[in-house]
């Protein structure tokens, strides 16, 4: 495996990924249970609010979106983790 990120970037990526996985995972759950607080965050137009089913669908879509993001960050996190390992190994070889 190649070393693409430096030690700092990979640590940064790793931390942000963990944060992203937890936060987006939870946010997805909250969208799924249709938290009224998140009403202003969903991409629904005024017309959508006429029909309850539409709003429900949008909530569900938002939940899936969040989990997709969380999934992406799982990969980013794994990648950063391996980069971190490679970097630390390199350091080990040098000193």
């Amino acid at each position: 495996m190649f070393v693409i990120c430096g030690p700092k970037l990979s640590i940064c990526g790793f931390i942000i990924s963990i944060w992203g996985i937890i936060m987006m995972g939870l946010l997805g759950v909250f969208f799924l249970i249709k938290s009224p607080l998140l009403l202003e965050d969903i991409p629904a137009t005024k017309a959508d609010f006429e029909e309850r089913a539409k709003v429900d669908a949008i909530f569900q879509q938002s939940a899936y979106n969040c989990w997709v993001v969380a999934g992406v960050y799982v990969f980013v996190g794994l990648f950063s983790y391996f980069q971190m390992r490679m970097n630390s190994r390199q350091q080990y070889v040098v000193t």
Partner: protein
Amino acid sequence: MGSLFRSEEMTLAQLFLQSEAAYACVSELGELGLVQFRDLNPDVNAFQRKFVNEVRRCDEMERKLRFLEKEIRKAGIPIVDTGENPDAPPPREMIDLEATFEKLENEMKEVNTNQEALKRNFLELTELKHILRKTQSFFEEAEFHHQMQDPALAEESHALLLGDEERGGQPMRLGFVAGVINRERLPTFERMLWRACRGNVFLRQTEIETPLEDPVTGDQVHKCVFIIFFQGDQLKSRVKKICEGFRATLYPCPETPAERREMAIGVMTRIEDLQTVLNQTQDHRHRVLVSAAKNIRVWFIKARKIKAIYHTLNLFNLDVTQKCLIAECWCPVADLERIQLALRRGTEHSGSSVPSILNRMTTKQAPPTYHKTNKFTSAFQAIVDSYGVASYCEVNPAPFTIITFPFLFAVMFGDAGHGLIMALFGLWMVWREKQLMNQRKDDGTWAIFFGGRYIILLMGAFSIYTGFIYNDFFSKSLNIFGSSWSMANISDEDIEKYDMIELDPNVTSIYKPRSPYPFGLDPIWNMAENKITFLNSFKMKMSVILGVLQMSFGICLSLSNYRFFKDPVSSVSVFIPQLLFLLCIFGYMVAIIFYKWIAYDASISYKAPSLLITMINMFLFKFPESQDDYLYSGQKGFQIFLVLLAVACVPCMLFIKPYFAWRAHKSGKRTVRFGTVQMQVNGAAEDTAVIMDQDEGEMPPPPPEGVSGHKEEEEFDIGELLIYQAIHTIEFCLGCISHTASYLRLWALSLAHAQLSEVLWSMVLHIGLGFQGWVGAVVTTLVFPAFAVLTIAILLVMEGLSAFLHALRLHWVEFQSKFYKGEGHQFVPFSFEALMEDHN
């Protein structure tokens, strides 16, 4: 008294050390690090002291070691840090050390000069080699041209080169010089040549591809080989001058190819020989440095310890008989046993038969302040100390700061999400304490964060708590227990009809009055339009309550000071009126805040009187007509009583203390008051300390700065005392009002923090969530890192710093001004450990 509440009890002690045992004893004391020595000959300058020679020798040793260290670092050899801490070597070992360092340094210097000479030689030869190789091609080219071109053309070109005077003459003898010049100098060199010789020289150059090493600096330099053709001696000397000016090195270059070849072969063999010699020198140097690198840390420690010991010995007084040294030092009373033990050990080490004597002295001088801290409390003590070091045995605010500081910070930083991140960061630093301790010691910012790791951890933990109270989690509320408000009974028509619906808490189907949200703010407020209005009222009241509590606690602490310093007059005439004044005005305000919260529920809240108006009217003695506008019956009388009581406190603060002082003075008794315990800055009072049982006649005259305390008892000035008291009283009374207002920053900053995090959510993360379909996922993925980075940069670092500063101010000004003098001076013990840390 080994607590953080007051500083350690200190005593001035006299040490009698046998001259032969003094060194060993001081060494032991240095390892112990509990003794602060006083300079007993302050008027003797540094060069006239007894051990100045030894200190100089140590300086010399350190210089040699630094030289060696520099060489080691330059050679890229790692210096092993074994963590070993050798004791200070006995004085006789110093000669051995000196000899070792001397030998090493000389060897190093010799090797360095040799190596430099060799390298210069090598450079010259390499340059010559390059010249021979490159010029070869020039000459070949020239010959080639000679053969190719017809004579007429050749003549033409020469003619052009040489100008008019030589036209038509016989073929000329062209002279040339060859040399090497720095590549960056070449363009100017060329132009200079052209101008100075009016274009009558011909310059050819090529670059040397491999960089050459400069023998002096060791840098890699790029150079060029050049060859200049010219005609005549005058031009030759001119060219040579220019070459010299440009630091070009000229080398002799034979004219015929055969000679050149021969020379090249000679140069090559010499280079090879030189290379082997150079390699050997390099190896030798490396070996020397590696062996030095193994020991250099230990040597440094030893040299520094010896130096510190002699430096300390210089502070001592010599006895008349020259048999013993006399030292004076401050030491904590609780540790006297350990100091005695160390002295005994030192005496044993030196093999002296006469024991060292430690003798306690009494003094009028203010002892230094010494708080025994550990790694947890030291950061909080540092917060207090940076305002002012506590006066000797004064109540130390640090133990209370441990709780109140992170708490007040958290009130301003109330967001559980941000608190969580901060707490995790702090936890990580505490967790990896040992590993992190040795890393990146020289990084200033990191050192600040790492030094405050326990503060950060606590601030984070408290912020999680206040975050749950405010129900803020990255500006969103969590509905953990289920909101007490319900929309179930509101008809769909109403919802469709109105943009906004008012939830009336008096309707039981909407609000369950007997079961409020169990912990913190009801999450429904996060959606309410009047959220800020509601929160402002709550947070402002909370700020005032916290402020009044902390200030009255501060005043109570001042009582502890008065009692400790046996000042009953102040506890009656200052403490009681101060507390009454604060409680009558702002304590009453806190009381009616609580009363209003309890006594008025939703059904009658519309007719509750405004607290602010009530308070203002209280001072104007203006009272409402109707009975409904009163908070409680008998309010009028009680409020008038409180105001009068508060006003009555002012003359008490003003006059009682001066009166008692005046009476005591009149009756001829010396007053024992807090003020007479002299608190002085270290430097000014250095030589005022006097052994109490010493004869009055032998007393040295106190310096002019130190007199005020003594004089006060002799010339009693009632006017001055009155003015002093008046200033303090006015300061306190006005302070009470302005400080209470100052606590409103708790509300202002927490509002700012909540709003900022809400803005960050809606401006950044909302963009991602606001896209329809799967595009939303893509955009959110891209936007989230921005959200994370901005959260850390703005909300955690920037807002955190501002909340930190405000919490700091609330402690320094609002809290500590009530009881803390902070006029002491720090106890700085003679300690090898601190010495080594300074050097790292």
